[in-house]
């Protein structure tokens, strides 16, 4: 139990995410209603104050992330959640927080798009999450959970890595993930004792020199350049040490499926069925979307012996670009896009995989 909340529960992912955040020490949350994240807002409103935190429904999302940034400036763990179109509003702050190294967690439960979109699940924000979406050239850790349990575990890890690296960290889910109800177990959050002290925080200059954030923008141009080099070095180290992924049925494969989040979850069923039927297909599932596990994908491809890759995304194809970049033309790639909030069934995924296997046999003969 944690303040009266059971360690094992049957919960919607949105509720479970909020509970995980509270257990990980989140003490400030701001948010604004937008489907399909709104339950996170409501869970925080009902539960966070009685467990030592502050909840504010902000007037709009830019104000909300401003508040989260302010709370994070004091060294507190803080979080904001939203969906797609309102995550767009927050991009300026993601650039600033990355630049000034202010840690917090941001959650995007993505919906169909582009534009106002619909309420269906989508992976159309992958570019926004991993290529910017704010200005100036920065990198941010992005997690792509697949199950409700993973939402819980990665949320707790997100707070930890945010503090470890002094960076915002994003959980990129979708409307299907957000609304799925499953049994979850809340483990203890990662141990904080090894984390660096937040001696940069704005807590009032008592018995220390004042902390001043943002001076690079004010002083001579070389300062901004030096700061960029510092950030590039940090992002390089994150790239080397924080990739996470899952391999499914990769031993002796002809075809490798690369997918994350919801389609990856659905794909496990047809992959196991195909294997039972003798077809040699496996899956590489990125869990960190940035840093994308490029080296690990290449290693997995080579180890498996696969001669073709299939990619299934709930978008017109965004992660596929990272797959292409990683594989550098080693094998052909079949993309199966699902746009506008639509989702494949298990048998549709099975059909796509069978089509790719057929293409392999045609090429071979």
């Amino acid at each position, binding site marked *: 139990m944690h303040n009266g909340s059971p360690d094992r529960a049957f919960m919607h992912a949105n509720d479970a995410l909020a509970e995980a955040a509270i257990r990980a020490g989140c003490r400030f949350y701001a948010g604004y209603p937008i489907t399909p994240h709104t339950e996170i807002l409501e869970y925080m409103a009902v539960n966070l104050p009685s467990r030592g935190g502050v909840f504010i429904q902000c007037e709009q999302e830019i104000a909300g992330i401003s508040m989260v940034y302010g709370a994070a400036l004091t060294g507190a763990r803080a979080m904001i959640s939203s969906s797609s179109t309102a995550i767009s509003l927050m991009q300026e702050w993601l650039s600033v927080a990355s630049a000034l190294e202010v840690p917090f967690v941001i959650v995007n439960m993505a919906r169909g798009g582009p534009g106002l979109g619909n309420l269906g699940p989508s992976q159309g924000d992958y570019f926004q999450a991993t290529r910017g979406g704010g200005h100036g050239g920065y990198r941010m850790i992005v997690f792509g959970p697949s199950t409700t349990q993973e939402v819980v575990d990665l949320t707790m890890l997100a707070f930890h890595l945010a503090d470890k690296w002094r960076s915002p960290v994003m959980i990129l889910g979708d409307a299907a993930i957000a609304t799925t109800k499953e049994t979850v177990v809340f483990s203890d959050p990662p141990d904080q004792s090894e984390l660096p002290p937040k001696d940069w925080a704005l*807590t009032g200059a008592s018995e220390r020199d004042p902390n001043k954030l943002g001076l690079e923008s004010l002083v001579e141009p070389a300062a901004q350049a030096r700061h960029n080099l510092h950030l590039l070095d940090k992002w390089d180290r994150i790239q080397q040490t924080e990739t996470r992924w899952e391999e499914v049925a990769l031993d002796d494969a002809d075809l490798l499926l690369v997918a994350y989040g919801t389609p990856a979850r659905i794909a496990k069923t047809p992959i196991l069925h195909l294997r039972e039927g003798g077809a040699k297909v496996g899956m590489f599932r990125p869990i960190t979307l940035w840093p994308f596990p490029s080296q690990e994908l290449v290693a997995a491809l080579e180890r498996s012996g696969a001669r073709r890759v299939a990619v299934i995304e709930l978008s017109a194809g965004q992660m596929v670009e990272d797959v292409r970049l990683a594989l550098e033309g080693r094998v052909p790639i079949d993309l199966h896009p699902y746009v506008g909030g639509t989702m494949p069934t298990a048998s549709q995924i099975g059909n796509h995989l069978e089509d790719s296997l057929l293409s392999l046999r045609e090429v071979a003969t």
Partner: protein
Amino acid sequence: MRNTFTKIPLLNDQQFQFCPGCTHGTTLRLMAEVIDKLGLQEKAVVITGDGCMAWAPQYLEVDITLVLHGRAPAVATGVKRMRPDSLVVTIQGDGDLASIGLGEVLHAAARGESITVVCPNNTTMGMTHGQLSPTSLPGQKTTVTPAGRDVQTHGATMDISSLVASQGRVAYLARASLHDAKSTLMAKKYLLKAFDIQMKGLGFTMVELLSSCPTCWKISPPDALKYIEETMIPAFPVGELIDVTAEGEVSA
């Protein structure tokens, strides 16, 4: 020799890069003196907007940062809610506060956040060299209104203090001028009250300071001070609009 004036160490020895005749230097000095007088230098967290006051972190020796244009009251909200014992102050020009940041300040005032907004209002966007501001006066020439602000085309002037004063949880709101010594002393008194009321946790506080921008107004520093006295004060009357600690009505 009698010591008549000492520069407060909270204001460091770096030379201001403000323009000749700009009253921002005065504003920073007043803030430093008031923080010092209240003994709050170890509790102060200052959040500046993106106008010429963005330079403030170079001069003030407190925990301080500049934030995105207009968002300071929301950032300040996050800071103060996590550190209620801090003195949390924003410094935002009229462009930052009343243009892009209007929503943030109104909502912070409505929620009654225990922060103090300090607004040097020079009726222009000074940092970017003199565009129209919501507080620019009718007929005022700016780079965007070279023939003078026309209310039909460019909208009517906003009075930020009146707007903020209409929100439900404002504990103190005052407007002072910086055009002469007497007014500057009154400004200091208002800042002292605002910070004190914040530390008592009584609600949202704000002080608007009628300020000069000789460079963008394209007039001399002495003429700029005269302009504040003769043209700005009639449009933006000075005085205390709200004071929850006062007995009886406050008269502006």
